[in-house]
């Protein structure tokens, strides 16, 4: 049986130890492998032998020893290849005893996040590397979460490290000037990890490699390091407020339940309270960004007693603000829904017609799905059936397709 307390401890320590080893040795790629080996060793030894008094020092010690072994075999290889080579063991190969105090730079976790979410990496590489290097997950766990073979995930991670090496991304904090843009990619990667977990899970059952929880955990770590960054707080609040609805958003067979039909008593009050408090505190300070706006919208939904009770007026103005700063047609789509809730489906439908001219979203199944809903509300049931079907034919998500087919079938059967 997996020991969750050890697992959590290991995941918390993973980036701190990796930061210390990388700073000492300089080679991120080898350090990352060594720390991963140390984590695996700890995961098998600690449940039997007990958690050592200085777990961080233990992991550091084991990882450094792996690095030394690696260097020794490297030196031996060079000796074989070249008799005159006089390589000596580098000074970092001196390994302190496991009880020695290990100074950890808190910012290392941040530096690691900036490194793993670097825009030079492809999205899937950044996600995989972040989960392993910062999240402390094993390759097998990440592979399982993304339903790909372990060898493929291992290769993806090693390619990501290769890209870091060849792009000469340094293990250091980005300059003030660069930081905002780089922070944008960190938040985006965490958001993608959350979303991947949220859209592929159902019910309350927690998976060992639950990506949503892992994303929330990492966002909490980041928020802990950067208390005053409003967008980090916004992202964390958005995740909490979205995750709060998890138990209600799917039925027994994993079928999607739309917001207006969800059993709100299943929503997680504790998460709603934490998320709402966080976003209202952050919002009050000004300096509003897109994650904060999305979190504020989620908070309005989460604290409403029903769809009718929801403050659509406020949601509409938040979407208008979001539209101004983000230029994303999906935002405009959501704004049309809010406008329809407030002023009737015809108003929403008119706004959707304008989106038909936007090549970024024209023909997208979501446009049809929303149009189907609004047509249904306006009483044009045949039009709604047609749109539900056409959306169902184009989505690549099984639960969404099943939901859309069911909607069309029910209207057709009336």
């Amino acid at each position: 049986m997996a020991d969750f307390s050890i697992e959590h401890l290991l995941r918390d320590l993973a980036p701190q130890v990796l930061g210390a080893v990388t700073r000492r040795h300089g080679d991120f790629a080898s350090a990352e492998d060594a720390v991963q080996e140390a984590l695996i060793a700890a995961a098998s030894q600690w449940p039997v032998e007990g958690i050592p008094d200085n777990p961080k020092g233990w992991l550091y010690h084991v990882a450094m020893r792996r690095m030394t072994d690696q260097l020794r075999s490297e030196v031996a290889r060079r000796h074989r290849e070249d008799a005159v080579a006089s390589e000596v063991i580098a000074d970092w190969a001196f390994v302190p005893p496991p009880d020695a105090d290990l100074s950890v730079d808190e910012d290392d976790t941040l530096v690691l996040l900036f490194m793993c979410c670097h825009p030079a990496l492809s999205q899937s590489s950044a996600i995989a590397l972040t989960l392993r290097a910062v999240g402390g997950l094993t390759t097998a766990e990440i592979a399982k979460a993304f339903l790909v073979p372990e060898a493929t995930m291992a290769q993806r991670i090693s390619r990501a490290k290769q890209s870091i090496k060849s792009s000469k991304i340094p293990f250091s904090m980005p300059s003030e000037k660069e930081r905002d843009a780089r922070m944008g990619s960190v938040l985006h990667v965490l958001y993608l990890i959350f979303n991947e977990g949220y859209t592929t899970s159902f019910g309350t059952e927690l998976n060992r490699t639950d990506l949503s929880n892992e994303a929330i955990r990492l966002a909490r770590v980041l928020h802990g390091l950067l208390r005053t960054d409003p967008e980090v707080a916004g992202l964390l609040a958005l995740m909490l407020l979205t995750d709060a609805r998890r138990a209600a958003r799917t039925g027994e067979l994993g079928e999607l339940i739309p917001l207006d039909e969800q059993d709100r008593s299943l929503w997680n009050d504790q998460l709603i309270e934490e998320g709402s408090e966080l976003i209202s505190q952050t919002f009050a300070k000004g300096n509003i960004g897109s994650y904060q706006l999305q979190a504020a919208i989620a908070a309005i939904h989460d604290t409403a007693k029903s769809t009718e009770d929801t403050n659509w007026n406020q949601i509409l103005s938040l979407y208008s603000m979001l539209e101004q700063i983000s230029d994303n047609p999906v935002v405009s789509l959501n704004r049309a829904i809010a406008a329809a809730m407030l002023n009737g489906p015809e108003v929403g439908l008119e706004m959707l017609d304008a989106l038909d001219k936007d090549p970024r979203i024209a023909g997208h199944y979501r446009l049809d799905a929303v149009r189907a809903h609004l047509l249904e509300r306006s009483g044009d049931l045949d039009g709604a059936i047609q749109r539900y079907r056409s959306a169902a034919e184009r989505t690549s998500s099984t639960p969404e397709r099943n939901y859309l087919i069911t909607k069309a079938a029910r209207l057709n059967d009336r």
Partner: protein
Amino acid sequence: MKFMLMMNVPKGTGDYQITSWSPDDFKAHIDFMRNLNKELQEAGEFVGAEGLAAPGEAKLVRASKTGGPPATDGVFPESKEFLAGYWIVDVDSAARAYEIAGKASAAPGPGGTPLIIPIEVRQVMSVPLP
């Protein structure tokens, strides 16, 4: 996002009559496919790939409406093309899936000439975890 790349080849005609190729042509073709798979593995995009046995022994099975044993239909000489094999890849964009399909399509045939095999590219539906 995952895609399935399906290699649908015309049946038993001209260049696709792989059993009548020269040993060198056959080897070049197999090597090409092996290298393609290796490249996908190294790129961290490989999910799965299989080649299917020749359609000569293919059967169509249908359950019986009356609850008896299922009916098995024999080989179908009239069908014009068949699925020779498939890949499943996990890539960042549809464009990358098309790029891989384009490579596979150019697998060498007799004399090393690219076969230009039609490859059907379909996105794999996302499924909730069990």
